[in-house]
């Protein structure tokens, strides 16, 4: 079993970069689909993609999947993560009619963000272990 995994790994390590990228993208999409299928069948109120991230993390940890199969595609996609949210952020256009209410919404969100991040940041830096 481990011999076979090792043999596969040596084959994939010699793949040219474009093939690596395609293989990685395929695996990442596969985990996104798997995560979505899991939350749908189990009725979990979690996003499929975050579930897929946890599954991939577990698969990498268990050495079922190798880091170099997906590293190129993962680094490429994460480099443009900010771009991939633009279609969603433009959605505020649908609520332009809310007008002045936006002022209150932004104020409340700002307060929640500052307080929440302040608590998390201060607590985490206090609890962080020094022995690195």
């Amino acid at each position, binding site marked *: 079993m481990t011999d076979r995994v090792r043999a596969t790994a040596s084959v994939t390590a010699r793949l040219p970069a474009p093939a690596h990228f395609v293989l990685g993208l395929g695996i*990442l*999409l596969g*985990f*996104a689909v798997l995560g979505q299928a899991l939350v749908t069948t189990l009725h979990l*109120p*979690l*996003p*499929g*993609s*975050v579930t*897929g*991230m*946890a599954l991939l993390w577990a698969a990498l*940890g268990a050495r079922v999947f190798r*880091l170099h199969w997906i590293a190129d*595609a993962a*680094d490429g*996609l*994460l480099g*443009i*993560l*900010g*771009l*991939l*949210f*633009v*279609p*969603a*952020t*433009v*959605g*505020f*256009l649908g*609520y332009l009619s809310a007008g002045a*209410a936006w002022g*209150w*919404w*932004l*104020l*409340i*969100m*700002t*307060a*929640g*963000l*500052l*307080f*929440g*991040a*302040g*608590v*998390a*940041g201060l*607590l*985490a*830096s206090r*609890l*962080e*272990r020094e022995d*690195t």
Partner: protein
Amino acid sequence: MIWITVTLLAFALGVVVQSRLRSPLANPTLIATLVVAALLLLVRVPYATYLRDVGPLQGLLAPAVVALAVPLYRLRALLARQWRALIVGGLSGTLSGVAVDVSLARVLHVSDDAQRSLLTAPATSPVALQLAHFTGAPPVLAATLAVLSGLLGALILPPFLSALGVRSPLARGLAIGAVAHGVGTARAREEGELTGAASSIGMGLAALLVTLVVAGLSRG
């Protein structure tokens, strides 16, 4: 496909502006959002049409979130050693954010729809979208406020954390991810791989916690 082109070029413009200005407001996601929105209003194209056109681009979001497992795996030894700081810090941060959002929305008498939507704003927008069914919020408003909250966090949190004296990459990343999820994580990654990985953990914990809070409220 014209709107995919516009979105890509607007984001590229945002990256160029960011490299020139070095201001926290010069965020590529913010700049692209404003440029695209202005053009849509100018040529009177409704958001639904835009969204249909950029579907392929949005299809890459799910595999990109899955890809966050890679930095988590690379830094697994370091993250495992700091599990207490990550879990306690992340959960307390998200819970504080939710508490402020909910109580302030009630005190300020914003509309019921907005109150219910703000409850899920500290969780990533797909979570907010799915939880809208339980909170009774309009799903699109819940998802929109969540993603905008992330964008707002990406802009204001890094300088705010510096002002508070939070310097460790782990604590900064966690704090950003705990309340500003995906867009915040994209911003946190600009500070380094550890900041980004801690932010992904904060985002994952926030998704779980907000889900549990909503489940508890809708049952009680």
